């Protein structure tokens, strides 16, 4: 049925239902490109959330999103500027306007910020307040490292952060979790959200742009066969930018980020199976448990707001030459289940990447799962070089894994991101190392061999010479770390 909503031609059975602060919102006529931030500011006149960058990098638009997952309602931070409206079904959006009590009393997070002089120009402040709030809900007595981590996704240009860190350390002196409105209402809200869960797939057309929110994996797979040119959107941390920055029209779109079947995590004795819509935040504790050196690497990827919504399948699927998970999964000998309709095939993660913008995937095929074999004997070293330590795109990322028998290396994998058009193993260099002692003389040969594996380019992140030099140096560093049994980092632990 065609109708006109907000001056737009809409043909839809699609209603997006979610809670915004205290209110149930039932929205007709939503477009696939509509962002949450625009909705908050332009439709609801909630001006607290700010647009600082429109690409999920500055955090001024941070809100909390509550969702029921595995039976419990959890609130996490995310960037509203690149959050697309059709992804909001059955969620609870909490903005900065919700924090103050009805009588105007500041929330403990807000009180702490005021008393610590945590704001100057105030533009980043609502986002910072929301990040600190989200972190405080998880951990009421954070360490300095915890606080730094919870602020990885927020830029402030005025304060130098000291007063904000002070505020984060003192929130609990201004109030306790038990008095928090959001937590008090959590049981009711949980039921409210369960009631909103999709009973049927929802299909909408707005301004001749079609989008589908499938209710199940089964229906998604079917829709994708019918719409083989559809763009798949999960966390929208990449596609969001096509919209806000490239002003792209995407049509049709299938929103898959909330499909429970794609969020499954299974660990058996041989391997970890991760649904493709598992987020970075969900993946990190599982992988870190089995591969401890992965932990820090994960915290070098974006900030909480992105890690909470960005998915591992999305990071692989968009096939960036510098996507941080691809080298990691290749280094861990990971495999991918690709599915098309009911057909499935399993390929190695490294075989997914063919060339720049070319992947081993056919129309209507999608990443269903990623499998990581468990291997207690694996030595794993993870490195990320970037201009800024946190929340930066890699200049070079490097994952080195190997096993050792009689002090000699075997099954060596040296995987690099940022060194070529795709994340790739340094096969010539691996050949040098395989079957040899890991000593300084072999490192020299390996460093030489690296030149036949890669011809990096120069760009705004670094020159080709630096990329090559640092890649070589990392092999040497790995050797020293391996032999000294310690991790050598200038960077502080998170």
């Amino acid at each position, binding site marked *: 049925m065609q109708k006109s909503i907000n001056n737009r031609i809409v043909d839809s059975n699609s209603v997006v239902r979610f809670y915004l602060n205290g209110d149930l919102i039932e929205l007709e006529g939503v477009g696939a490109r509509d962002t949450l931030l625009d909705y908050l*500011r332009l439709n609801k006149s909630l*001006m*607290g959330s700010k647009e*600082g*960058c*429109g*690409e999920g*990098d*500055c955090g001024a638009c941070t809100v909390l999103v509550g969702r029921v997952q595995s039976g419990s309602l959890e609130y996490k931070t995310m960037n509203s500027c690149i959050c697309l409206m059709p992804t909001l079904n059955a969620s609870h959006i909490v903005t*900065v*306007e919700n*924090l*103050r009590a009805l009588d105007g009393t*500041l929330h403990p*997070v*807000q009180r702490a*910020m*005021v008393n610590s*002089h*945590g*704001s100057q*120009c*105030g*533009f*980043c*402040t*609502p986002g910072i*307040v929301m990040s600190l709030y989200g972190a405080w809900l998880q951990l009421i007595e954070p360490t*300095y490292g915890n606080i*730094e981590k919870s602020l*990885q996704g*927020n*830029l*402030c*240009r005025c*304060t*130098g*952060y*000291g*007063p904000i860190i002070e505020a984060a350390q003192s929130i609990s002196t201004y109030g306790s979790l038990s008095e928090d409105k959001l937590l008090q209402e959590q049981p009711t809200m949980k039921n409210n959200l369960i009631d909103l869960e999709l009973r049927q797939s929802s299909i909408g057309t707005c301004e001749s742009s079609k989008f589908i929110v499938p209710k199940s994996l089964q229906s998604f797979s079917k829709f994708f066969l019918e719409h083989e040119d559809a763009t798949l959107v999960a966390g929208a941390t990449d596609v969001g930018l096509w919209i806000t*920055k490239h*002003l792209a029209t995407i049509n049709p779109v299938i929103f898959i980020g909330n499909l429970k079947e794609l969020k499954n995590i299974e660990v058996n004795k041989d391997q970890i199976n991760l649904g493709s819509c598992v987020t970075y935040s969900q993946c990190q504790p599982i992988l870190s448990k089995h591969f401890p050196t992965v932990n820090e690497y994960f915290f070098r990827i974006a900030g909480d707001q992105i890690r909470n919504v960005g998915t591992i399948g999305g990071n692989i699927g968009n096939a960036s030459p510098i996507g941080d998970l691809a080298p990691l999964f290749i280094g861990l000998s990971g495999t991918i289940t690709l599915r098309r309709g009911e057909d499935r095939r399993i390929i190695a993660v490294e075989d997914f990447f063919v060339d720049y913008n070319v992947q081993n995937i056919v129309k209507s095929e999608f990443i269903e799962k990623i499998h990581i074999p468990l291997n207690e004997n694996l030595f794993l070293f993870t490195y990320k070089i970037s*201009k*800024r*330590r946190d929340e930066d795109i890699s*200049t070079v990322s490097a994952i080195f894994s190997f096993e050792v028998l009689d002090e000699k290396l075997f099954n060596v994998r040296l995987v690099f991101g940022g060194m070529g058009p795709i994340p790739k193993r340094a096969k010539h260099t691996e050949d040098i190392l395989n079957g040899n002692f890991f000593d300084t003389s072999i490192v020299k040969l390996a460093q030489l061999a690296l030149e036949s594996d890669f011809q990096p380019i120069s*760009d*705004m*992140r670094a020159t080709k010479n*630096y990329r090559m*030099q*640092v890649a070589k140096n*990392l092999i040497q*560093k790995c050797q*020293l770390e391996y032999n000294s049994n310690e991790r*050598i*980092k*200038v*960077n*502080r632990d998170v």
Partner: protein
Amino acid sequence: MFRVRTVKTEKVKDNKINFISHNPHESSEKHVSGSAQYVDDIPLPAGSLHAYIGFSECAHGLITSLDLSDVRELRGVIDVFTANSIPGNNDISPTGKNDEPILAENEVLFWGQPIFVVVAKTRNIARKAARLAKVTYDDLDFISDIRTAEANGGVLVAPSLELKNGNVENALKEAPRRIKGEIEIGGQDHFYLEGQVALTLPGEDNDITVFSSTQHPSEVQHMVSQALGLSSHSVKVEVRRMGGGFGGKETQSNQFAVLSALAAVRNNCAVKLRLDRDDDMICTGKRHDFIGRYDIGFDQTGKIWGVDVQLSARCGFSSDLSGPVTDRALFHIDNCYFFPNARLRSFPLKTNTVSNTAFRGFGGPQGMMVGERIIQEIAFDLQKDPLEIRKVNLYGKKNMAVTPYHQTVTDNIAPRIISELEEKGKYKERREKIIAFNKTNKFFKKGIALTPVKFGISFTATWYNQAGSLIHIYTDGSIYLNHGGTEMGQGLHTKMASIVAAEFDLPVSNIKVSATDTSKVPNTSATAASSGSDLNGMAVLNAVNTLKMRLSGIICDLYHTDKKTIYYKNGYAVFDCGKIKFENLVKMAYEKRVQLSAAGFYKTPKIHWNRDKGSGRPFYYFSYGAALAEVTVDEFTGESSVDRVDILHDVGESLNEHIDLGQIEGGFIQGMGWLTNEELWWNKEGQLKTHAPSTYKIPLASDRPRIFNIELANWSKNKERTIKRSKAVGEPPFMLAISVHEALLMAASYSYTCKVRPTLNSPATAEKVLECMRNSRIKSLE
């Protein structure tokens, strides 16, 4: 412990005014609640439209065709216009040079230059339409960097300045040691969190009101009226607050205010123009990058005999403020050091890049980097601790106190600041430990450095050093305060309100500071050059004194008391034979028909500057400070971390210690970003490629040193009669971050033990640090 607050507790006598305020920022509760209103948050009248800009995609060329038909045809587009449609002057040069078109006419001078404007029903439609233009260019040669500009004749956007002192040729010839060298110093994007934005509302009688995120409402008023062909009295500009400025909204907001005004007047409705972050970073000016070349002579003790420096700056396509910026760079090469013979010259070079502009420090930081580089060169040459070289060369008494611009330094507290910080920070002990560490550790190198700052306060354009204020007292005793300064987060309104509150000893809640408004205080100067509190504070005090005089007159008439005995305490006017509640006094004044509104004015005394002669007293006084930074670098990757920083900084008698500490800490971290991770990068086509936070990396919370001690030099008083003997604080702390750069140089050069002169250009990214280490090591081994 990472912040030290030295909040004074000394008791103040009843009749003395206690200015020290501990109030948090006046908007802080609104900031944390999301209710502080910025321009983009102002509710729009029905039917408002949105403007967006079409930008050039060519670094230098002649427009051969401009087809805007697709732009016009997009549904929702209402209006499209180019330079031809500007009724007044197509120019927004802030210095009247007529070299900065609002919209390019025939020639495009940089990639990202505004060419046309689209007005549409929504911002998204306007943005989308702006990309549908078909423009062809006849490409011309372009110059995007300093070296190319120099190789092509070095066209300047503003005249060079030469500062001369003594006989530099002789000094260089006769000095026992002589070194020539150069250092590259990168630019910096302001990255104010709130991007450029303006909203214009047309009114009756051709009048318009512009809400602009600007540090300089009066200039916006002038530019808008000039472009529209209106008189200034037809244009009102209002600024409640900015989401950060840092100099990036001193002149750069003019363009967007003007374009929104043009669009509003053409379409007779409210029009907002808010830039996307990427476009903002591409089309607005930045901190100038410099190459500093020096030729220095000195003796075995490290004492400087002569300094010959040339500073070349990338200014971009127009002059903007590049003249004064490069002038100020020259004024700060000396930093805290006496140059008996000096010749300092500036070359503000024209390039086909965005026109660079004011940025916290206004060229001073770049000049100071060259000065500190000279110290490092001497230290390396003599294999001495750079701090020793600094101490040998500090300004002294009489003849040793004259700057290259012939102003005598009379308030020098650098020696005391340095020695106190050296002691508190255990500099010597730590430095020795670090040198030992660097000898043995295979994986890391550390560095430590103590660098001072002396920063000249006053606009070098002398006429800018004036300010006005307007105070109303209403009959209920509440006070409405207006002044010419703008609030960009620096706490100016908080300080101004606290001055009034302190003078009448009223709670600060009695005083409301209004938005800055050109119709209340006219002909204001930019809130810049750290001058906001100095200038406006005195103007506010001037108005308060006028009001006090009038109120005192009433008390004297009624109670036959002596004016001199009257003071204000706890909400009362107190005098020898009684006291009266402030609001009752005000009511009485009203009934006696005494004017309860007063304007205030202030101009900085004593200053003068003759640019042609390179001589005068450009600065009313100097602010001082020093920082001690310790860093670690990774031998394999060049990555670094700043581990500890100690700061001792001079703000005279602080007006608000929390706000001043905030300025020091924030300024330091911003300076640290400039010198470490913040890198601007242009591709071969002359296009800036670092134009978003994804590619341009300002410091994060985790970049901040975990040990960070900041103290105010609470013994310092301004020798000059500034507001409560305070000192300016906006810019000086920025340059404290030079300590980080020097510490990185020490680490990367293996404690200066390498055999080549180590060079570390700025920003010291991991790549540059690794390069410096490799050069130091490889060449040392040879």
